[in-house]
């Protein structure tokens, strides 16, 4: 691996998703083309237009135990479970606490906790409201809890940007290491928003698939039959480390976290412009000092909404050239993990590089006419076109017009 003084590497991965309770099972599910979407239980309000979701396989409350579970919102528990896995996967590095950072956030936060406390307040009065309500609702809550668990004193941050949050967290973490503030950073996101009011609210935006008779076929990025996103839940955290620190302790390196690019559409609160997406990808490639032709794979944001997918496809074709890179839309399997999506899809991107295989995109039975990109519908081997180390991009876009692109390269 050729590294410079400011090279940042990925040394640990953790995830809990609708496909599996850890990274290994999630990755196996992705390669197998499995859908994590399923019908919600009969107790789900039947008047809602959406009655399915990509629910997490592993209940984080059972994993962390009763005492921790009562103090934290479900989104925070997902992040904590993923952080623990990532930390162990990295070999539980010895690191000076003042050189260890945390960047973890949700897209939205602890809505279920505020709803529960509102109910308690209405029925039993203020004294019965949990004193952990505010920490559970706080978008920076998981960063705080995780910093406590690992003794991370270099800073705990929560750069929230809706569905770009997980990617933005990783970008912030790269900057923390590059600017000399930390040697090791736990970065990622969690989200738990499969609630009736959430589905009512997203459905009010006409953003969700209503394919209730076929949950597994509902998330179908780039397919003509797509009718909106499928809500998912879970968490993803990675361990980022300065290359020098990783080398000193002989850590296994999955990939180089080569750079992040950001832009704001400044256009519409929920509809993408495409201009911002292109800018974010180009800024990321510049920041990573990676040539366009070295990029072999993109994990697209591709949420399966009618508007978003075509705009991203056009942006990808313009930046990389039509059909030049192998595109995967893993939300076809995981559903849309909202704020956690950028973290979980970064893990998929990193493993694609490490194993030289792009995961498939399922449900792409009838692609958009003249789709200008090459979408893998089966696992696809990744090969360098230039002889340079393989490079891959993960795109994440959020309501509010936030665009974040991350570039990873093979070590």
């Amino acid at each position: 691996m050729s590294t410079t003084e400011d090279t940042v590497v990925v040394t640990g991965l953790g995830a809990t998703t609708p496909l599996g309770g850890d990274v290994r099972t999630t990755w196996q599910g992705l390669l197998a083309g499995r859908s994590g979407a399923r019908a919600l239980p009969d107790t789900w309000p039947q008047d809602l237009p959406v009655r399915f979701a990509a629910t997490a396989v592993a209940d984080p409350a059972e994993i962390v135990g009763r005492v921790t579970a009562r103090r934290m919102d479900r989104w925070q528990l997902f992040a904590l479970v993923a952080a623990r896995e990532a930390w162990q996967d990295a070999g539980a590095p010895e690191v000076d606490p003042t050189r260890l950072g945390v960047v973890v956030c949700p897209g939205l936060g602890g809505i279920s906790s505020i709803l529960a406390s509102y109910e308690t307040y209405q029925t039993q009065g203020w004294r019965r409201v949990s004193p952990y309500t505010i920490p559970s609702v706080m978008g920076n809550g998981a960063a705080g809890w995780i910093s406590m668990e690992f003794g991370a004193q270099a800073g705990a941050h929560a750069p929230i940007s809706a569905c770009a949050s997980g990617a933005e967290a990783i970008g912030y973490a790269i900057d923390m290491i590059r600017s000399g503030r930390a040697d090791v950073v736990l970065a990622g996101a969690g989200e738990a928003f499969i609630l009736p009011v959430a589905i009512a609210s997203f459905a009010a935006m006409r953003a969700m698939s209503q394919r209730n008779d076929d949950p597994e076929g509902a998330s179908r990025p780039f397919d003509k039959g797509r009718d909106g996103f499928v809500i998912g839940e879970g968490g993803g955290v990675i361990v980022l480390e300065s290359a020098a620190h990783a080398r000193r302790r002989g850590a296994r390196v999955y990939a180089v976290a080569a750079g992040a690019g950001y832009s704001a559409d400044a256009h519409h609160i929920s509809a993408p412009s495409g201009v911002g997406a292109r800018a974010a990808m180009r800024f990321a490639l510049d920041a990573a000092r990676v040539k366009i032709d070295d990029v072999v794979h993109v994990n697209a944001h591709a949420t399966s909404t009618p508007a978003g997918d075509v705009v991203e496809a056009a942006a990808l074709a313009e930046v990389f050239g039509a059909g030049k890179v192998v595109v995967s839309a893993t939300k076809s399997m995981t559903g849309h993990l909202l704020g956690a999506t950028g973290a979980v899809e970064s893990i998929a991107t990193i493993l694609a590089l490490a194993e030289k295989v792009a995961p498939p995109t399922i449900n792409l039975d009838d692609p958009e006419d003249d789709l200008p990109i090459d979408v893998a519908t089966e696992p696809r081997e990744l090969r360098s076109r230039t002889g340079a180390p393989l490079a891959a991009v993960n795109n994440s876009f959020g309501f509010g017009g936030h665009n974040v692109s991350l570039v990873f390269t093979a070590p």
Partner: protein
Amino acid sequence: MATLEEIRVAFPQIVNEIAGVPVAEVQLDKAFSGDLDIDSLSMVEIMVAAEERFGVKIPDDQLNKLVTVNEVVDYIHSQAA
């Protein structure tokens, strides 16, 4: 009305339920913060649960004065009596 003995048995179970401290460690001479490592927010939860369980009122101004398990048990008993 709970007897002193009943409170001594039931209160450590509340502490265990909320803060995860093993029942056997919740001994009368132990301080919540110093010995049992129970933080201020969990302490609020424990007091509210105790109020519910024993049908007493533990005003907020008492909270900081009740340092040990025994002090809480005695206070609950005095209010329940």
